[in-house]
């Protein structure tokens, strides 16, 4: 197998794995966060505004981990530096 298809295969498989494994943790975390926020709102409906604000900020923090994985896999698929390097080397 030449290096070109090696790089392509490695980047695509890694992008898929990055997304798959990387979204497990944030999904569990967001589930826990929403669960406890909902039960707190059910216990104290008066505090709904501050609970919701904290929930959104917390969700954004958790979600950013999944977003990092997504950015990495996007870079691997669409803007792969190793791919352009190999292609340039093979072309020139």
């Amino acid at each position, binding site marked *: 197998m030449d290096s070109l298809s090696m790089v392509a295969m490695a980047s695509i498989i890694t992008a898929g794995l990055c997304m798959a494994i990387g979204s497990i943790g944030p999904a569990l975390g967001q589930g826990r966060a929403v669960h406890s926020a909902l039960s707190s709102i059910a216990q104290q409906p008066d505090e709904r505004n*501050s609970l919701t*604000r904290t929930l*959104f*900020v917390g969700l*954004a923090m958790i*979600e*950013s981990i999944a*977003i*990092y994985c*997504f*950015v990495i896999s*996007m*870079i691997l698929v*669409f*803007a792969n530096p190793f791919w352009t390097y190999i292609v340039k080397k093979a072309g020139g």
Partner: protein
Amino acid sequence: MEIVAINQISPDQVILFQWGWIVINATLVYTWAVMGLLVAGSILITRGLTQDRTLSRWQNLLEVILSNVRSEIREIAKDGGDSYFPFIGTLFLFILFSNLLTFIPGYVAPTSALSTTSALAVTVFFAVPLFGITKLGIIEYLKEYFRPNVIFFPFHVMGEFSRTLALAVRLFGNLMSHEKVIAILLAVTPLFFPIVMQALGLLIGLIQAYIFAILAMVYIASASQAHEEKEHKEKKHEPDRA
């Protein structure tokens, strides 16, 4: 309709005009469009301000937005929230408008380019010590870096950089991923479903603008109020809360 092709991950790569070394890409154009819209809108609305009981509906809109932003800031920064108000409000309005205008065909949110979001995050990075030093003085501000003890200094510095990176990548990733999802859906189920996702995009854009502004506010407040909190704690003998 789609200006950014699916294999381009940011509107920086869409070059609209090039003359010698001057390159005008889509991010620049739309950033200036949003800035122009905001400035022209504010000038037009604030030209005829009244204090009567009857206000124009635009003044009413502006007052609703600004008073809500101000009350949010006051809830986080307990005292003197008004000194943060211009910075946070500008960040919020700029991100909000650049996210919400995506329902216009042909428009690409400048916040879906990593360069724009890093520029915004860098302003927050510099605003934190600026506000902190003006509130606390330089000695007290620098003491915060050694707060529990000296060992924590590198972690504080690392935290400053990593949260700036997180701010930039969070906004960019959310907007960019949403754009890509819509582009993929357009290829798969062209008629109805992309519209639903576009509507969801308005919600995502609003939440991201809110989160960016709130996080900037939290960072600034934590840098400029740490000392007061400590005094407060000593007075009331409250248990330590992280």
